[in-house]
Every structure is written in structure tokens, then in C-alpha cells.
């Protein structure tokens, strides 16, 4: 009986410890620097801006091009050959508003926007 009791205490202790670790991970999980680049709804790049070196790269869609720039932990659409340039005019990515290029179906957004907001109107 005593052995059995110790056994269950040990089991509970393990569950307790595992739960505690899990909760800490969930509650303090780092987010805020991970950015996804999606084309037509599909994630084509996942970038951790805190680790990326400054660079530019080109994404193509049906022959049309978008140039994405990463600089000093920020990301933006540097150039696009779409007519309206809404994406370029959006500037550097902020947590609230994704950078969207409609003609080329390209979206740059934070993977887990940590703004305390559920959505932004505008």
C-alpha cells in the first residue's frame, strides 16, 4: 500500500511538472518576431526577423515580381510590378496591418500578432 501510494505520488508529480512546463511554454511562448510570407494562401517563407540578416529577395507570381526587403529586423515590400503599389505604400510591416499585394496574391504578416487587438478596421 505504501509503495503503491508513493508510486501514485510520483505519477502525479510527473503530471504536475509536465503541466507546469506546458503552461509556462503556452503563456510565455515567444512570438512577435516571426513573419510569414504567403502566396495565394500558402506559406512560402517563415522568417524570424530577430535572426535574419539584411537582404532582399524576389518572389514571382505568374511572371510578375515582388521584391521583399529585410533590414534591421524590419520587413517591407520594396518594389512590385503591380499597377497600384498599395503594398509598397504600406511601408514597413507593423503588427496591426498585413502588407498585401492583391494582384500577386502576396501577404506578409506577423505569424502571431501580439498587439492585444483582435482586428483592425481601416
Amino acid at each position: 500500500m505504501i509503495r503503491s501510494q508513493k508510486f501514485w505520488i510520483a505519477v502525479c508529480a510527473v503530471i504536475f511538472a509536465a503541466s507546469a512546463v506546458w503552461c509556462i511554454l503556452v503563456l510565455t511562448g515567444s512570438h512577435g518576431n516571426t513573419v510569414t510570407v504567403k502566396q495565394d494562401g500558402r506559406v512560402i517563407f517563415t522568417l524570424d526577423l530577430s535572426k535574419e540578416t539584411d537582404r532582399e529577395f524576389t518572389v514571382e507570381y505568374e511572371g510578375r515580381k515582388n521584391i521583399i526587403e529585410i533590414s534591421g529586423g524590419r520587413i517591407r515590400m520594396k518594389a512590385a510590378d503591380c499597377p497600384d503599389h498599395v503594398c509598397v505604400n504600406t511601408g514597413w510591416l507593423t503588427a496591426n496591418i498585413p502588407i498585401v499585394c492583391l494582384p500577386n496574391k502576396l501577404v506578409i504578416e506577423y505569424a502571431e500578432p501580439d498587439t492585444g487587438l483582435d482586428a483592425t478596421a481601416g
Partner: protein
Amino acid sequence: MKKLYGIVAAAMMLSSCSGAEQNEKVSRSVFAMDTYMTLMAYGDNAGEALDAAVVRIQELEAKWSVTDSGSEIYKADRSPGQPIAVSAETAELVAFGIDMNNKTGGALDISIYPVLKEWGFTTGSYKVPTDERIAELLENVGASRVTVSGSEITVPEGMMIDLGSVAKGAAADKVCEQLREAGVASALLDLGGNVQAVGSKPDGSKWKIGIRDPHGEGTVGTLSIENKAVVTSGGYERFFTENGNTYHHIMDPSTGRPAESGLLSVTVVGESGRYCDALSTSLFVMGAEKAEEFWRNENKGFDYIIITEDAGLLITKGISDDFITSSGRGDLKVTVVE
């Protein structure tokens, strides 16, 4: 043994923080109606309900698109002048557009499309049209000349209609209704900056909606809502610059030129998405004074947040307690409209 129960209870309590599956967020994204939409919902049926919502949005777009040659609006625009049979929901939305044209004294006009096109806002090939060209095009603008009879609509020859100023709001209404019918009690739609909520968050608290700062990145403040639509129109959304002048996409139907009403953005909050959608454009065209007058005439049946060019923020009483100005915009002069 007491100690044992204590440990078991503690373990269960901690484990329970991972047992929130039924409140897990499900989301979908879709490119439709010339914008990027994100839908999110909570609950058991959330995934299926959102898949159905995406299909619904695409169906509505196929009916209402002004550029898709298969759409009902496309056909009506090229009738020419003949009655065209359309679906009940299209006829109903066109009738709503005509009604809002009348109600807003012409500030909203679903037949402004040819003017918007001339300025290049539909294609991205921007140009400032001549006064003569604008005057010529305005002769064929006037939503009151469009007629709806049963499920037939008639667009007079030479005129074109476009539901762009009400379609996203109307789609949000229909999707919210569909989600509620599917048993979803908590969902938030972001149809390209048109936000609409079903219920509140799963924990019962209100959704926190940022109101975009017309001056750039970030927000002017946060509005807490439940079961409401929040729709913003601003000149910053689409514009071009020529010879040092900036021209934005919100046309004043009375001049055929970008509205110069002293406003940077108008956010309308209310029950009906399409009504808020229509009003955010109309109030922007009207300007602050006429907007307030309109709000009184409508028995304060909606709320608004207006950002003026001279850094004023006008907010109606109904939502002023649910709004918090962003810390970075302490310069805004807030006025509560009662």
C-alpha cells in the same frame, strides 16, 4: 492520503489549462472582392462553418463583381437599358443602394463607377480627368434612375453600377447570419478592414478592434465591441499624387472629384454591416457637420468615430465609453458627440 488528493487536484488544475480545445481558434483567409479577408471563429463547428463562409463569399463575389463577365452586375451594366433578371439577394442589395442614395442626399451613389474608373482607381492607371470629361461622365451618374422591380434590375443606357461601397458589408451580414445558424457563437470577420463580430470572445469579453491611424502605421485607438460591425473609410486607403496634389479614391458624387470634406477617416459602428459600409463612405463625403446632422436624423441609430484633418477625433456617446485612444496619439482632440 490527503496529500495525495492535493497533488492530484493540483495536477488536474494545471492540466486543465491545456484542455481548451473547444475554445480553440480556427481561421481562414481568402482573396475576394478585391481585398484580403480573414475569418476566425471558435467552437465545435467553427472549421466547417468557416469553410462554408468562404464558399458563400465567393458566391456573392461571383454575382456582384463589376469586372467578372459572368456576374449579374456586369450583365446589368451592359443591358443596355433593359431589365435584367438577377438573384433576389442582388436585387435586394441594389434596392438598398438606391435607398441609401436617397437617404444620404446623394452622398452615396452606386452609379459613380464610370467616374472612379476615369480617375484610374479601378485599374491603377491613375490620371486627373479634365473638368469637361468629369461633367460629361456625371450626366450618367444618379442612382435614383436605376430601378428594381421584383427580381429585375434596370440600369439606364450609358450608366453603370458597382456595389463596391456596400458589398463587403452585405457579405459580412450574410456570413454572420450563416455562422449563427451553424451554431457558432463567437466569430470575427475582417473583410479587408471591414470588421464584423458574431457574439463576443469565447471568454465573454468584448472584441478589441483597432481603428487604423490615417496618418500611417498603427492605430488611433481601440474600440471594444460585440455583435457589431465596424467599418472605416479613409482617403489613405487608395490614393495617388500628381504635381504635388494628392487624390484619394472616395468620390464626391456631386463633383466627380475626391471628396474634400476636411476628414481623414470615418468609422461607422452598428448592427448592420451593409449600412455601416454605406455610411462610412457617405459620412466621409458629407463632412463632420452634415454627418452629425444625418446621425440625429437617423435617431442616432448607429455610432461613428471621425478623424478630421485638424487632428480632431469626434466620437458619438454610444461608444465613447468603449473607446481608448492610443498612447501615441495624445495629440488628438477628442470630442464626444451627444
